[in-house]
């Protein structure tokens, strides 16, 4: 029973040679340097939620979007490992990935797995070209962690559905071409998980309205989306209908397993290392070393998860652990930085002061988005056989 979450000694003697992918990393770094020079990447001030359509299109031109997808959908049929390398290079650089990140990470794969052929042909090539933003339509005002209690309902009409309800905390909905919406297609009965479905909802239809939710950093990334009878074609249903709970679980698995769950504040850690370069500050070395060794361990866990997923081995418990520990480290990094640095964090200060300000202001959301830490710990406990 205790072996539910085990990597060693299971893997003993089965070492996997780590390919550095030097050429691929160099290509991404060249791209990043060009974008920094052009001012589209502002190190430390942006993250993977920052929306920039032009940046996403240029990423796609370089082959950095839809990397593992089949060529017939505009993908490049590269390995999961290569995709991981590109992802971590872009994340460490703090690039503005928001226009394509969710679509590439989860929405596209979800459609590939559960969508109709028509939907795939309509949507996937546009995502691959960096021209299509997707939003996640899960949370509602009365349904956050308790996701199965959602009330948005899809009424069956001729040729499709009409949607009624409200979604909230939807990142970049103001830019999104589509939202994948978890909704009720059957009234709720005794089984709270039955009667749910996922629909790929076009955002341009009449009946969809988006209201900005400005966060405490003064940024517009989150939104409230109201559905007032907007039409969704039948070919946009994912899965069979009624299987939405299982499908949303799969989509969340895509969401929880990547290096975006521990690299969000890498910029300030890199700044710390740079600031204390050439100094003899033993306290700083100790603190930086603590964070760097932990980050190294998290990256190894992340790579192990990516390897398991690529081999088709379940990794859900591992991904929960990585998200919980990774987001905690993301929050700890600015907290260590503010103690080590004689600096006032300020969004309009110099580059380092602005990087620290961005990290501190955004820190609370790391342990909330994509599943709160308390929910994650509960799932981990279940994996351990405790519930």
């Amino acid at each position, binding site marked *: *029973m205790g072996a539910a979450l085990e990597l*060693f000694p299971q893997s003993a003697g089965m070492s996997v040679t780590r390919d550095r992918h030097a050429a691929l990393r160099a290509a991404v770094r060249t791209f990043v340097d060009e974008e920094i020079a052009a001012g589209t990447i502002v190190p430390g001030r942006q993250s993977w939620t920052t929306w920039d359509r032009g940046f996403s299109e240029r990423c796609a031109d370089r082959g950095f979007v839809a990397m593992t997808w089949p060529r017939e959908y505009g993908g490049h049929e590269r390995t999961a490992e290569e995709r991981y390398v590109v992802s*971590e290079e872009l994340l460490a650089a703090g690039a503005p990935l928001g226009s394509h990140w969710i679509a590439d990470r989860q929405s596209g794969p979800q459609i590939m797995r559960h969508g109709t052929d028509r939907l795939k042909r309509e949507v996937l090539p546009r995502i691959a070209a960096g021209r299509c933003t997707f939003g996640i339509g899960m949370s509602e005002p009365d349904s956050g962690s308790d996701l199965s209690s959602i009330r948005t309902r899809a009424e069956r009409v001729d040729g499709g559905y009409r949607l009624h309800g409200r979604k909230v905390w939807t990142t970049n909905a103001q830019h999104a071409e589509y939202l994948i919406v978890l909704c009720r297609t059957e009234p709720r009965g005794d089984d709270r998980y039955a009667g749910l479905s996922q629909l790929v909802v076009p955002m341009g239809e009449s009946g969809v309205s988006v209201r900005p939710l400005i966060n405490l950093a003064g940024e517009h990334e989150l939104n409230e989306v109201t559905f007032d009878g907007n039409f969704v074609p039948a070919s946009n249903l994912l899965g069979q209908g009624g299987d939405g709970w299982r499908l949303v679980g799969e989509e969340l698995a895509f969401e929880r397993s990547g290096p975006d769950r521990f690299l969000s504040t890498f910029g300030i850690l*890199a700044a710390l290392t740079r600031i204390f370069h050439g100094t003899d500050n033993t306290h700083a070395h100790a603190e930086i070393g603590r964070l760097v060794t932990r980050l190294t361990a998290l990256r190894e866990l992340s790579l192990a998860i990516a390897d398991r997923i690529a081999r088709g081995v379940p990794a859900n418990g*591992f991904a929960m652990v990585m998200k919980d520990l990774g987001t905690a480290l993301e929050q700890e990094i600015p907290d260590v930085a503010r103690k080590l640095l004689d600096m006032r964090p300020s969004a309009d200060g110099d580059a380092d002061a602005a990087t620290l300000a961005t990290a501190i202001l955004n820190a609370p959301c790391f342990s909330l988005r994509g599943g709160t830490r*308390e929910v994650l710990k509960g799932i981990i406990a279940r994996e351990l056989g405790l519930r």
Partner: protein
Amino acid sequence: MNETARLLDDSTDRLLRDHLSDPLRRRSPGLRAALLAEIAEAGLSLALAPAEDGGLGATLSEAAVIAWRWGFHAAPLPIVEILLAGLLPAQVRERICDGDLALAETRIGPSSARLAGACAGHAPAGLLAVAAAPSGNTMSEYPVSAGDIRHALSGEVQVLLTGSPDPVSAAGVALDAHRFAVAGALLTAAAMSGAMGRALEIASEHANTRAQFGKPLAKFQAIQHMLAEAASEHLLAQAALARALSDFDEAAPHALSWRAAKAQAGHAATKVAAVAHQVLGAIGFTDEHDLHFYTTRLWSWRDEWGRQAVCEAQAGRDATADPRGLWQHMVDSEEMIR
């Protein structure tokens, strides 16, 4: 696991179950000698010795499962030092396994004047230290007197020499002192991982069976979260350890890999021990329960062959010194190995 690792794990497990499943046997005075004889007979103590020396020529990753299983049973004897002895010349190796010689931790980087090491016996005549020197790597033996004997938190015998004593003998040695130190760190981290795994099993079993207020402890969210956190830290330690062992066996040069493994093992051990004791309650705090065999070993091992704070400080020093910046420091120091 590969075939060799599985074989080593099975042998170690069987051997230790025979001796340790009976709680009374664990306290018997003849246990250490019996275990020493059996691991020698099973060839386990020679796991790392090259085949031409009569050993198994195992990789560190394979030998680490012996240490892991040793920690899983919280078995007595300094398994790390016994396994490392396999890398040393035969006459010295035998004296270490007999308990006549303690083996000092090889330190990397700023070294303190103190030499400290563990011993298989109770009254070693000497302490052997492998060290890097400008002229080559050396193996020196220092005299040990009764006043130099201590006991670790686990109860294991330790030798602690203070001051700068003169060695009674010194010789050049072919092995790489740096790699010797890293092997010690990773074998210790593996032993810690085994102990953590079993401690978490014990705590989970207790939580699932012990009932208070009409339900098992495991139904309380506070207990669930504590165990989830402890298991998470352990998983993180395993990930770092697996990579560091792989890097060692492939002679990858990056120190960050093994330092992260040993530091995270220390961090995880602290969390796992604390949570296990918290869940077990008062009974786990007494010697009537086996938990203390695990937690005292974790508390000892986290300081041995690479104290957590030292590993972290060295990692921080290296990271800040690297002119390429942190990201390249972390990902670009891996050699491309084909």
